[in-house]
């Protein structure tokens, strides 16, 4: 628990008083009962960040701005995961030459679609005087709102001039206003201010720090966290008006965002990142061994997990820990084949509850999760257990030592052994047993589900023994594992840690432990409801806290915004 004496060591007196003030106000009003034991710790933040857009964010923005009928063809180069999250990798990733080549091509394809004869009426606020000639006024009427949405702030004068000049000159040369417009739009779509989410920074209004995020940067941080896309017009307007600088203004926007259906996208993105669902894109199952889990069913298995998570956390507002013992989900015809149940309307997603007798409880026992952490043609208790430990519990399983003598495991007939028998050999070697005990007990408890997540009672002709022990809690089968997992303190702790890191785009530092402890306590006292956790994070000043960039003589803290468009700077 946080202590005042520790706070005084790191915080200025005014920040301390402000923190206490929040505590007093909150408790007086009884708004956040859970937090009344302690005031929220204040963190110093990190340097402003630059995050590369993920593929889904890119797609979401384009569809938000231009509509979902815009075809975004082509492949994006993946952002490599860092410290367990793509969101953290995005803060360290740049754009390689081959990636940029693809972005540039994609930008041209999108721009062509936007200005095409079929589509232009959807986006153009005006018509040029003559199609065969440039028209600056009409081009400006297009670029200003589109640029504002793409850059997540108003275009600066020079950015707008660049787009207009490009459109004008190209329009002149090509003899077509819309071709010129397409070129200007292409320049916005390959611009670093679009492809990266760059924290805008301005001089701080308080004496506690010399820099803070601009309102637009706060809007972006909120929007990418909660919606996995750029801010909508309402949020940008709130940023422009300075509303995000006040608690009431921020709360109003957060409340609105929490009510939006886009929150489902945001939650899906967070769990996709946390649980490595992007690996479904390359998940391969042997179609001779597992014919039911074809590529379409694999996609459905991913969707089932996402739908279940969204429903559990958002629609039912249920205890996060119960996600690991829930039997409620959604099913369609293809998954019905895998779960061996008939589905009345196979083309639709239908609410479904696994019967108790199936032993299917918790998302870790769903076909998608099991299949994701298995081999193409067989289960892997070690990989599955490692997935549970690392992704759901944030416990790092040490890498295998580099000097194992696998001759020990070359048992004749090992290919005919059950997984439990094979792994018993690993556990007989001291240097292996330490890590395998962490993983295998969990995975072996899910051995009733094969590498495609299909139920099986036996392995190699032997009845599967799914008993195990999770951190001191013994159980008989996978439902026992589900119960043990849901009660394990690492489960909610991991969620809080990963949600914070995902939102901030970086791994948590030691100095942020107080805030983490505070949120975890609040999460527990709020009965592990996820939406309040999100709300606590985004309404905290800590979520927006930054340190100033060290002055190395080449840079200065300045906003990336156009002063003419920033009402606060005008006042």
């Amino acid at each position, binding site marked *: 628990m946080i202590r005042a004496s520790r706070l005084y060591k790191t915080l200025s007196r005014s920040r301390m008083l402000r923190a206490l003030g929040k505590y007093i106000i909150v408790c007086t009003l009884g708004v956040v009962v859970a937090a009344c034991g302690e005031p929220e710790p204040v963190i110093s933040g990190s340097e402003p*960040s*630059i995050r590369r857009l993920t593929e889904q964010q890119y797609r979401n923005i384009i569809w938000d701005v231009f509509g979902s009928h815009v075809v975004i063809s082509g*492949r994006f*180069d*993946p952002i*490599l995961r*860092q410290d367990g999250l793509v969101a953290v990798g995005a803060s*360290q*990733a*740049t*754009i*390689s*030459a*081959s*990636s*940029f*080549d693809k972005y*540039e091509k994609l930008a*041209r394809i999108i721009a062509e679609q936007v200005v095409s004869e079929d589509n232009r009426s959807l986006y153009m606020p005006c018509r040029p005087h003559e199609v065969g000639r440039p028209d600056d006024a009409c081009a400006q009427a297009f670029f200003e709102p589109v640029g504002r949405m793409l850059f997540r702030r108003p275009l600066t004068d020079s950015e707008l*001039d*660049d*787009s207009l*000049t*490009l459109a004008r*000159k*190209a329009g002149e*040369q*090509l*003899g077509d206003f819309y071709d010129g417009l397409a*070129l200007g739009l292409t*320049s916005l779509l*390959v*611009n*670093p*201010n679009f492809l990266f989410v760059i924290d805008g920074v301005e001089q701080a209004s308080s004496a506690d720090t010399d820099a803070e995020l601009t309102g637009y940067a706060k809007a972006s941080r909120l929007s990418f966290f909660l919606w996995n896309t750029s801010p909508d017009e309402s949020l940008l307007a709130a940023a422009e008006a300075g509303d995000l600088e006040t608690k009431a203004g921020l709360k109003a926007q957060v409340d609105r965002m929490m009510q939006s259906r886009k929150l489902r996208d945001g939650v899906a993105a967070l769990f996709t990142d946390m649980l490595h669902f992007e690996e479904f894109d*390359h998940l*391969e199952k*042997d179609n001779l*061994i597992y014919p039911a889990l074809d590529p379409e069913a694999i996609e459905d298995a991913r969707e089932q997990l996402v739908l279940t998570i969204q429903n559990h956390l958002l629609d039912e507002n249920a205890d996060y820990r119960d996600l690991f013992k829930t039997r409620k989900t959604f099913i369609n015809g293809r998954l019905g084949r895998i779960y061996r149940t008939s589905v009345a309307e196979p083309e639709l997603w239908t609410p479904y509850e696994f019967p108790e007798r199936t032993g299917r409880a918790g998302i870790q026992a769903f076909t998608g999760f099991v299949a994701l952490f298995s*081999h*193409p*043609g*067989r289960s892997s208790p070690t990989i599955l257990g490692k997935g549970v430990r690392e992704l759901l519990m944030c416990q790092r399983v040490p*890498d295998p*030592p*580099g000097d*194992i*003598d*696998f001759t020990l*495991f070359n*048992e004749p007939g*090992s*290919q005919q052994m059950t997984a439990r028998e*094979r792994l018993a050999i690993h556990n007989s070697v001291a240097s292996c047993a330490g890590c395998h005990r962490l993983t295998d007990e969990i995975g072996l408890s899910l051995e009733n589900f094969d*590498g495609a997540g299909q139920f099986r009672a036996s392995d190699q002709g032997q009845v599967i023994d799914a008993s195990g022990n999770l951190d001191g809690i013994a159980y008989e089968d996978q439902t026992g594992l589900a119960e043990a997992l849901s009660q394990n303190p690492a489960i909610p702790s991991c969620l809080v840690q990963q949600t914070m890191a995902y939102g901030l785009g970086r791994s948590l530092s030691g100095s942020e432990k107080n805030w983490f402890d505070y949120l975890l306590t609040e999460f527990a006292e709020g009965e592990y409801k996820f939406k309040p956790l999100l709300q606590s994070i985004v309404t905290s000043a800590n979520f927006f806290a930054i340190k100033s960039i*060290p002055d190395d003589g*080449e*840079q200065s*803290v*300045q906003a990336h915004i156009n002063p003419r468009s920033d009402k606060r700077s005008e006042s």
Partner: protein
Amino acid sequence: MTLLRTSKTNRRSFLRGALAGSAISVSLPFLDMFLNDHGTALASGAPIPVRFGTWFWGLGHTPGRGMRALEDGGYDFIDECRSLEPYKRDYINYFSNFNMPLDGNPSAVHFTGWVAGKTGSVPHGFGGIPAPTLDTIVADKIGAATRFKSLELSCTGNPVHSYSYRSAGNHNAAEVSPLSFYLRLFGPEYRDPRNKEFTPDPQILLRQSVLSVVEDERDQLLRTVGSDDRIRLDQYFTSVRELEQQLEASLSAPPVTEACQRPEQPVEWPLGYDVETVGKTHDAFAKILALALACDQTRVFNMLYSHASSEVRVKGTTFTHHILSHEEPPDDELGFQVQTAWFNERSFEAFARMLAEFVNIPEGDGTLLDNTLIFAHTDTSDAKTHSVIGVPSMTVGKAGGRIKTGLHVNGNAAPVSQVGLTLMQTMDVPIEEWGTRSLRTSTPISEILV
């Protein structure tokens, strides 16, 4: 902002004029004139370029079943590498017994081995890329004049399976689909350099104008960010510049060999790890790649047959190459892991088929393979134990006559970075020393240098 920058006014002005009309047609004599201005002569007088590539296979050799050293300094390919034997004398050098001291770092299984060999530095653990991979260094030297600075290919269906990095956050992801690869190289934007009426794509100048606008923001943007982010943004702007260079290169017909032709467009098929699919994907990539090199679309490539800890498998079986390498017991009579060796054999058969594609392309008095240097490398010397002692590697090709071939080089525990240093020096990279800590070396492998 600069639009259609005027630093090379003659070319730009000319094409601006051409763009003003709706039909773009540029006659060869006129174009020829400014191609010479570009500094790159056309095919008739151009030296044949030397290309550089890497070829990666996962899981090394089954011990003792790849190469047999001979007393005269030569070697024989045996068993799982037998398919490479026809290329040995004229094209292949085999490197054994080079070492990678870990300097206190853990050996990250299936990772440290290839990273150290390709970066000259031992990573601190999984995921860390301590230095640029050598292919990017070579690409900076020889790749700027072509349409694509380098091309990365993975036969596993996963774009992450590319071992080409400028830094941990700057990864050159792989093409995984032969059809996508074909379309990128030989799709609508391809201009046949053999065409006497070579006409650059009129879109190129427009695209350059867009990039020019973006580049103009560089200085302002870099001033506003911290040092780490400045490096990342600078890498982004480097990528912008590289595309500009590619576009510039596309304005002129590259020097091509008589064998340059547009390959047949492949169909699409489901990608995956089963050995038939991997081989089919590999073969399709090899055909397109060989012609891409012949048509001078690129001079650097990275081809990955299977990734480190290869999951290649046979359909309908439950054990992958990787699992077998650990769990398959040696055959009682034969004394080795029969199924594991079978997968290794498939790897080298695929490589031999790729070399055949290169040899089938005539260039001057020789073939494409005579003018190429391929670094074939892997992640481990013994997959069963994850050993990184003596991880094998090969050079394939004559690099335009710059290296000798048919040699076995026993490193006698010398740092593996000597191989990388030799490769880069062969490709004219001005580098005298490479690697860090125990892998730091200034000693190239002189035995193979002409």
